């Protein structure tokens, strides 16, 4: 009888120990998971912000903002579920939020590189445009000044000719 008690006692002790270890492992996992999701949220936000700074369209940024707000809602709901004790449902919500965040990070990265390329192209186009316009302005200004100088000279010569002709006429009359 005593032996049975001993065995039962050992069995219960082992069971409590296993349950404790499992519980602590589960809570550690949850902590790590929520920490990971927190850092992913920050990465997603920062990447979206960088894409915005590089000149991504307002519609795309609005998309990212909407998704990130959905993620925040999911995390809040997961916390509530966890507080209620339904760990599975909380984990499902967390993993959904995590996959949404991964999508945001991926899309924001590609949007950022697209925006960088677009900005680079714009810069190149602007530089070329500035050079071309400056050349055109120089060419037109040169042409115009030459034309003006030519016209001035012609007017001067015409006046000179006119003066000479009048002088000749006066000498003939005299």
């Amino acid at each position: 009888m005593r032996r049975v008690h001993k065995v039962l006692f050992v069995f219960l002790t082992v069971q409590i120990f296993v349950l404790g270890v499992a519980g602590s492992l589960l809570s550690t996992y949850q902590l790590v998971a929520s920490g990971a999701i927190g850092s992913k949220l920050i990465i997603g936000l920062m990447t979206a912000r960088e894409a915005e700074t590089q000149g991504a369209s307002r519609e795309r940024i609005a998309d990212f903002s909407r998704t990130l707000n959905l993620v925040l809602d999911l995390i809040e709901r997961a916390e509530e579920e966890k507080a209620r004790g339904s760990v599975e449902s909380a984990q499902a919500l967390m993993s959904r939020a995590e996959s949404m965040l991964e999508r945001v990070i991926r899309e924001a990265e590609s949007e950022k590189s697209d925006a960088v390329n677009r900005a680079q192209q714009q810069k190149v186009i602007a530089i070329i445009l500035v050079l071309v316009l400056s050349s055109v302005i120089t060419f037109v200004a040169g042409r115009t000044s030459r034309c003006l100088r030519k016209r001035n000279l012609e007017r001067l010569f015409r006046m000179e000719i006119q003066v000479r002709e009048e002088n000749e006429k006066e000498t003939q009359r005299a």
Partner: protein
Amino acid sequence: MKRKLSAHSLSIAVFLSSLAILSMIAYVSLVPRPKEQFFQIYVLGETKMAEKYYPNNNPNIALKTKVRWHLGATNFMGSLQYVVLKVKLANSTIAVPDDVNKLPSAGTSVREFQRVMMDNETWEFPFTWSIETVRLTRETLFITSIIANDRTVLIESPARNGHNYRLIVEIWTLDPLDQKMIFGWRAGNDRKVAWLQIWFNATLPRS
């Protein structure tokens, strides 16, 4: 020869000046103008106006009386921002946020609302709260629970005769440098803070 040289130098001068002017125009059109970065937060009454903050305009809030406000924030930071509005309960002796040292209030946290906000976006939401339970010890009244937006929050906040309680609203944002939440926001090298408070008295129901 001299005339040719002067024409040449004139062309170079025209080219360089047009280059300078056009570069300036291109720079101004391509680079966005820096603007002041700030947040705006506000609390409105139940009519969504700066009035009727208390039921029947009476700041003595009885137990289980619902108080309806609207909290709002507008992002003028020029970029996407992660914003948290923290609502805290404090009495008259608890320090309010420190504007100089940028320290938050030591009041008890009641609720936190978070959102990712776009530039120029206004976020407004209803905030309904009521004092759910209180405890009276001699002349000191303790608010022991508050229901804020359908969530019960257990607290322990004393005030003499239940007078001079206040709900403080603080704005917290994600600091892009430390990547941590900070009270207020960082605008360039500056740190700025914004907070609001509304006073009320807690009253016991007449027995």
